[in-house]
């Protein structure tokens, strides 16, 4: 009896030890659902032998909440927008990157190495970048929209057939751009002016929508929506009458980045993952799969020209992209923004 128990005990200990050994070198990645080709992790493991597990987050705020609360434990690589990467860095939760472990950084456009939120890419590596503009049905909206005011003060035929993005940075953006203000402003009078416009605009909106706005265009529920360029491509894929345009007042430049947590226990493995993503064929596959622009020169140069013909916004060059203001962390000003957005969505 005693020997049996001892035997079982030894087996149990060996099992946990071996699983622990197995877990060594494993990395946990948190990304948006559908933002990475499904087989990417498998291929990464096949090539490098490092096990990788993926979890999803629906919004930047969600992963920020988790990481700030836990100090980043349990995560190795995070996909977050640049302004949140900046915030993580200020909180000391983003690890400093060893460029020596990531030779494929050389594939990036020179502009991507000098992004204003992290010059020299000390703690974040850009994964995808793009703009936010108007996505519309060209067969319904016969005159192409040219200004953010076409969304903010829609023509009668468009009332009740427009949507706007619900996340605070992009909810406020159209009004700030239409009024000529910076998209990173924290000045109270500018924010108040934008708020007043957005409360008026809300009366003409069909709904706020961050995820199904392109489906509404395809189904005809909406005729013109505020959209990220990549998401608009998903609509174009289903209905070739859908077009994307950047209004004359401009757009933002958003960058989604890969960050290694400072709490990570496998930093080398995490950097190996980032290096793998930066490979030209991998990053090109990402672009073809998620229909977003990637900041990888080698990848974009190799992109199928037919794809660019079908999705014109993929052709935007980095020089043109950098003409737009990049979204930055607002620091203390975030409180005012949150309060203002609450007031807009609560207003009648």
């Amino acid at each position: 009896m005693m020997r049996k128990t001892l035997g079982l005990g030894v087996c149990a200990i060996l099992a946990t030890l071996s699983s622990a050994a197995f877990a060594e070198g494993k990395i946990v990645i948190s990304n948006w659902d559908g933002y990475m080709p499904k087989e990417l992790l498998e291929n990464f493991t096949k090539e490098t032998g490092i096990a990788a597990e993926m979890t999803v987050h629906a919004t930047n705020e969600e992963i920020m909440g988790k990481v700030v609360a836990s100090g980043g434990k349990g995560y190795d690589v995070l996909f977050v927008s640049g302004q949140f990467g900046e915030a993580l860095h200020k909180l000391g939760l983003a690890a400093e990157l060893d460029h020596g472990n990531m030779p494929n950084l050389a594939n990036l456009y020179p502009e991507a190495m000098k992004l204003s939120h992290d010059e020299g890419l000390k703690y974040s590596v850009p994964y995808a970048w793009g703009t936010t503009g108007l996505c519309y049905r060209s067969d319904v909206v016969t005159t192409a929209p040219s200004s953010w005011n076409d969304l903010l003060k829609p023509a009668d035929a468009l009332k009740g057939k427009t949507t706007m993005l619900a996340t605070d940075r992009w909810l406020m953006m159209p009004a700030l751009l239409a009024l000529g203000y910076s998209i990173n402003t924290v000045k109270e009078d500018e924010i108040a002016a934008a708020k007043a416009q957005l409360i008026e605009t809300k009366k003409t909106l069909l709904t706020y929508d961050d995820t199904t706005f392109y489906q509404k265009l395809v189904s005809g529920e909406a005729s013109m929506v505020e959209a990220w360029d990549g998401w608009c491509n998903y609509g174009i894929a289903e209905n070739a009458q859908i077009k994307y345009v950047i209004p004359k007042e401009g757009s933002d430049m958003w960058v989604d980045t890969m960050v290694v947590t400072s709490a990570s226990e496998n930093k080398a493995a995490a950097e190996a993952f980032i290096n793998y993503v930066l490979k030209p064929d991998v990053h090109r596959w990402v672009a073809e799969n998620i229909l977003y622009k990637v900041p990888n020169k080698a990848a974009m140069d190799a992109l199928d020209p037919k794809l660019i013909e079908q999705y014109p916004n993929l052709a935007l060059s980095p020089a043109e992209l950098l003409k737009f203001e990049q979204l930055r962390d607002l620091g203390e000003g975030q409180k005012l923004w949150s309060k203002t957005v609450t007031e807009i969505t609560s207003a009648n």
Partner: protein
Amino acid sequence: MVVSRRIVLTGPGIAWIMALLVIPCALLLVNSLFERGIYGGIDYVFTVENYVRAIDPLYGEIFWNSGRVAGITTLISLALGYPAAYCIALMPKRRQMAFLILVMLPLWSNYLIRTYAWMVLLNGEGLINRSLIGLGLIEAPLPLLYNDFAIIVGLTYAYVPFMILALFSSISKLAPELREASTDLGASPLMTFWRVTFPLTLPGIAAGCVFVFVLSIGNFVTPDLLGGGKRTMIGNLIYDQFLTARDWPFGSAIAAIVIFIMMALLTLQAVLVNRRGRDETTA
């Protein structure tokens, strides 16, 4: 009952309530008295600013609108639920169980899926609009979705089963002799209902109404999906503060105020039930 046996029997229940209700509510109150850190999180600096901010007329309006939507939902649920519960209560016992199961059946499927189903039915290109246009009854699609109408429909649909069950339990306890006595004494069916049945089922009505009101006012899924994010109710406000704005102290303050209002309502309901009970025993 021996004291030790009483402790053993009530112990687990009390421990459960303490751990999962009392302590979290206490934590909520504690959180609401501190400041928010810059990137979310809590700065342990004592302040009543969150409560001062919560009584801002903007949030007062949200409270009011939430109460209004929840109130309308409750009234419609009552109007729909009472006849249904009355009908089921009057059935032979064998059939009652079958009908009660039918009432509960929608609750077996996922709430989110049922809400999305309503979106499919109500939207501009959806089933209802297309049928009405196809039948020639209307020309342009009706705005049935992304407004208060859709929210009330969604909430009523979700919570009517609770109303029916609460009313059923009260109506089925009525002695049929009381109704017979009332008719014998010359009252019309309407009089019988209004003067005898309705007052005696008031505890059930109160219970049902409180169920539906409390569930509706706290609901944030339906207003977000069916309201299109354009109607902020108190549940959405709290959700936004915790998950998007990451302002836990302010969210806690609002939640604490909502809990306080709900406790007041429940106390009112308990008083009503007690008074009913007293009247019945003295009558």
